[in-house]
């Protein structure tokens, strides 16, 4: 065969082969000129100007240097190291085995022409089937700020139906127009941003202000920036408030149990934090169990974890009360120390048994969040915790004020001797209440495992705040605990950004402590003081 016939033959084979459907004539032509070794720039410019998505595989391959000319056609080197033709079909020899020619050199693109490839890819993405890709491409072109993109954006806008993509394209066009030499066009762009203030406009507006001379245009730009900043601030503060609410809900679950136990038995349970920790570990253990035995239903472990942590930790609390704490009735300081000892034993025991870093993966339906405002995502896990704390609150309220057992608990809280005289078994009430309080902490720990790590120290993180809540909220009063946990949780999270800097978490904790001490100056019995003639504070 003559050398001239070879490309013809290849072309003919390609055309006649049963798989010849994919390559359009334009792509073919470009491929052939590249294979021949023709100058690249005009070819690339043509590709870019046409902005036809069909060229995508060709351009991507060029970008990654995986395009090889071979016998008049082009070969792609795919990710697994095999050669394919432009359609992606593997190169086979006569026997049907993968063929790997050697001695090929990839087509390299001059650095000066790399930009062409980028542009080509972006323009092509504007007509992609996936609206997400189109939107991303529009935003990218807007932020790149290349005026050459404008006609392509306008063309894409004309045929676009998807509102999200449309908005992205309009924004990109406006961004590009900010640099237009014609002031009327710039004015038009500013008008657009005035009508649609969004954070994406911030940085181009700031650059605009640096270069712009016209005072009237500057005024508009400054005005728009002020509006955007204000919106940003509002959004951030809503975010902080949400964080505060989330922390408050965790504190609430923990503190209800602590407050009830304290109000009833006068015991401050220093091991309450460790009960929280045990709840988290219950979730962890269950997760491991499900992973080993029910891998298909991995996510459902959480449904089992909630009641399990409730029961298991409640049982531990019951045993503790019956075994140790009931002998310390009437000696609050001693019980403080004993529970501290218990806490130390539990936390070190957990560390020795489980190791220092274990984590629970939230079930898939808890990942991600709800986009309440553009740029503000409220995680589903935190929303769940808030919901859970409200449910706990309602449950505790119902139990305490609408059931017989709750009546007995309240009676013992108010006047132990009299309640005992009326036939209420104070021992049983004590044991059940303590178990209930610790069970709540366990539930809180299980919920907490969604948003934090599961480690032996997790209890200590929340216990100090929890104590503050009980001290501030008043003895045994549900509403006081709610208000106090809300107050302390919010103050913690709102002070943090207000102080700013890396130490803000530390300083905000210290400030909250000082605030509590000062609050106790004005109202030493807490928000809701126990009524009665007994002026001594427990």
């Amino acid at each position: 065969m003559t050398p001239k016939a070879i490309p013809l033959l290849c072309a003919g084979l390609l055309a006649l082969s049963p798989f010849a459907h994919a390559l359009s004539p334009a792509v073919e032509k470009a491929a052939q000129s590249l294979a021949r070794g023709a100058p690249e720039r005009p070819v690339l410019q043509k590709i870019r100007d046409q902005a036809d998505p069909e060229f995508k595989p060709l351009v991507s391959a060029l970008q990654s240097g995986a395009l090889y000319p071979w016998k008049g056609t082009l070969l792609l080197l795919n990710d697994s190291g095999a050669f394919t033709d432009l359609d992606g079909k593997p190169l086979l020899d006569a026997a049907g085995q993968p063929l790997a020619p050697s001695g090929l050199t990839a087509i390299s693109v001059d650095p000066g022409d790399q930009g062409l490839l980028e542009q080509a890819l972006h323009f092509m993405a504007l007509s992609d089937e996936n609206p997400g890709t189109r939107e991303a491409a529009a935003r990218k072109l807007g932020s790149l700020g290349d005026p050459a993109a404008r006609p392509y954006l306008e063309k894409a806008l004309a045929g676009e139906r998807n509102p999200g993509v449309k908005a992205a394209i309009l924004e990109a066009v406006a961004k590009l127009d900010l640099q237009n030499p014609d002031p009327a066009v710039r004015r038009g762009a500013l008008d657009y941003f005035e009508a649609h203030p969004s954070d994406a406009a911030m940085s181009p507006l700031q650059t605009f202000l640096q270069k712009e001379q016209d005072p009237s245009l500057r005024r508009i730009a400054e005005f728009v920036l002020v509006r955007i900043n204000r919106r940003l601030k509002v959004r951030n503060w809503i975010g902080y408030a949400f964080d505060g609410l989330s922390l408050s809900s965790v504190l609430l679950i923990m503190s209800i149990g602590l407050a009830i136990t304290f109000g009833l038995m006068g015991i401050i349970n220093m091991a309450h934090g460790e009960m929280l920790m045990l709840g988290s570990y219950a979730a962890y253990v269950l997760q491991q169990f499900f992973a080993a035995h029910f891998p298909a239903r991995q996510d459902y472990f959480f449904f089992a974890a909630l009641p399990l942590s409730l029961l298991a930790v409640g049982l531990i609390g019951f045993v503790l009360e019956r075994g140790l704490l009931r002998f310390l009735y009437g000696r609050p300081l001693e019980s403080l120390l004993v529970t501290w000892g218990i806490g130390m034993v539990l936390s070190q025991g957990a560390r020795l048994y489980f190791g220092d870093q274990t984590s629970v993966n939230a079930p898939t339906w808890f990942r991600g969040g709800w986009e309440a405002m553009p740029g503000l995502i409220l995680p589903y896990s935190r929303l769940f915790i808030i919901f859970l704390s409200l449910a706990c609150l309602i449950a505790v309220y119902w139990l305490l004020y609408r059931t017989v057992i709750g009546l007995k608990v309240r009676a013992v809280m108010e006047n132990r001797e009299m309640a005992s005289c009326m036939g209420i078994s104070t021992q049983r009430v004590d044991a059940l209440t303590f178990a209930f309080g610790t069970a709540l902490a366990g539930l809180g720990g299980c919920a907490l495992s969604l948003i934090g790590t599961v480690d032996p120290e997790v209890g200590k993180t929340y216990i100090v705040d929890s104590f503050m809540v009980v001290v501030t909220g008043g003895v045994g009063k549900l509403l006081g605990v709610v208000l106090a946990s809300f107050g302390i949780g919010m103050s913690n999270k709102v002070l943090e950004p207000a102080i700013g800097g890396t130490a803000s978490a530390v300083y905000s904790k210290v400030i909250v402590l000082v605030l509590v001490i000062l609050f106790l100056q004005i109202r030493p019995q807490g928000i809701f003081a126990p009524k009665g003639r007994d002026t001594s504070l427990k």
Partner: protein
Amino acid sequence: MQKRYFWEAFLLGLFVLLLPALNFSGHLPDYYLNLTGKYLALSIAALGMDLIWGYTGILGLGQAVFFGLGAYAMGMHLMLKASGHGVYGASIPDFMVWNRVTQLPFFWKPFQSFSLMVLLAIAVPFAAAALIGLLTFSRRVGGTYFAILTQAMAYAAWLMFNRNEMNLGGTNGLTDFKTILGFPLNNPGTVRGLYVATALALVLSFAACRWLVKSKMGLVLKAIRDRELRLEFMGYPIARYKIFIFALAGGLAGLAGALYVPQVGIITPSEIGVLPSLEVCVWVAAGGRGTLLGAILGAVGINAARSILTARFPNEWPIILGATFIGVVMFVPDGVVGLPRQLHGLWRRRAARARSELAAQAGAPVEDSHA
């Protein structure tokens, strides 16, 4: 009573006279003398704790903070004396050079002078404790609320001392000391001198505390512990007593800290915090509340146990400590010092029960008719 004084005198003599003598003659290695010196320094803090808890019934869970204030005072002084000999040879401490601090912060300056430092090591914790007492006791915040607040204060102090911005060495604390009053710290003579100073300070503090609790004030304090409400109705200004004794305990803790640091050679925020404060409690609880001697025994005993056990069971030590807490509070509430009395009481009750059983068997069939 005489027997008790004998034991106390014996122990004090042992500590103050015998041990340094043994060390001087070479029979007792420097290491053990140093270790005992540390224990004695901690005992001074325990004395303060006994005053407020054993005698007045105030459970303060922040004593380690006052200890730390005194300890850092000494530490700052020693660092300043070692300046110029540090790794950088600068006139300010090494850690400030790392943190790019160019000038000595103003609050470091008073600690150049030894006598002023000693004064501050006691006065600053005293004042801090007085302030806290003022903010709480005069508002009738007592009992468990007070315990929780002091615990939170200890936590907050630990957080603050860990920050580099405080210019107190951050997490690494103050270390690398060279001399005290011109004597090199690793010289055995200095070790002995520090030991004697600590032992003497302990004896003096012990004597002062003993005098205090035997005085009328001691009676009032015990009354506050036992029947505060009644005492208040009798017209005593309870808050003032509490503030005073709390401040005194703070000062003692500060003194303890100042004596502790040159013998250990380092002070870090880990000595200030919730756990060290609780340990002071265990010492006093284990030794025997309200006996002063018990505080010393508890401090020395438990710290000695810790030195031995953490070498062999480093991971289990917190469990052992926690179990000790539980065990002591539940089963030996009067501590080691009160153990003889507790056992004696138990024995007497058993004897009485045995006697009444015998009496029941011998006669009194009347009770059976109700069965």
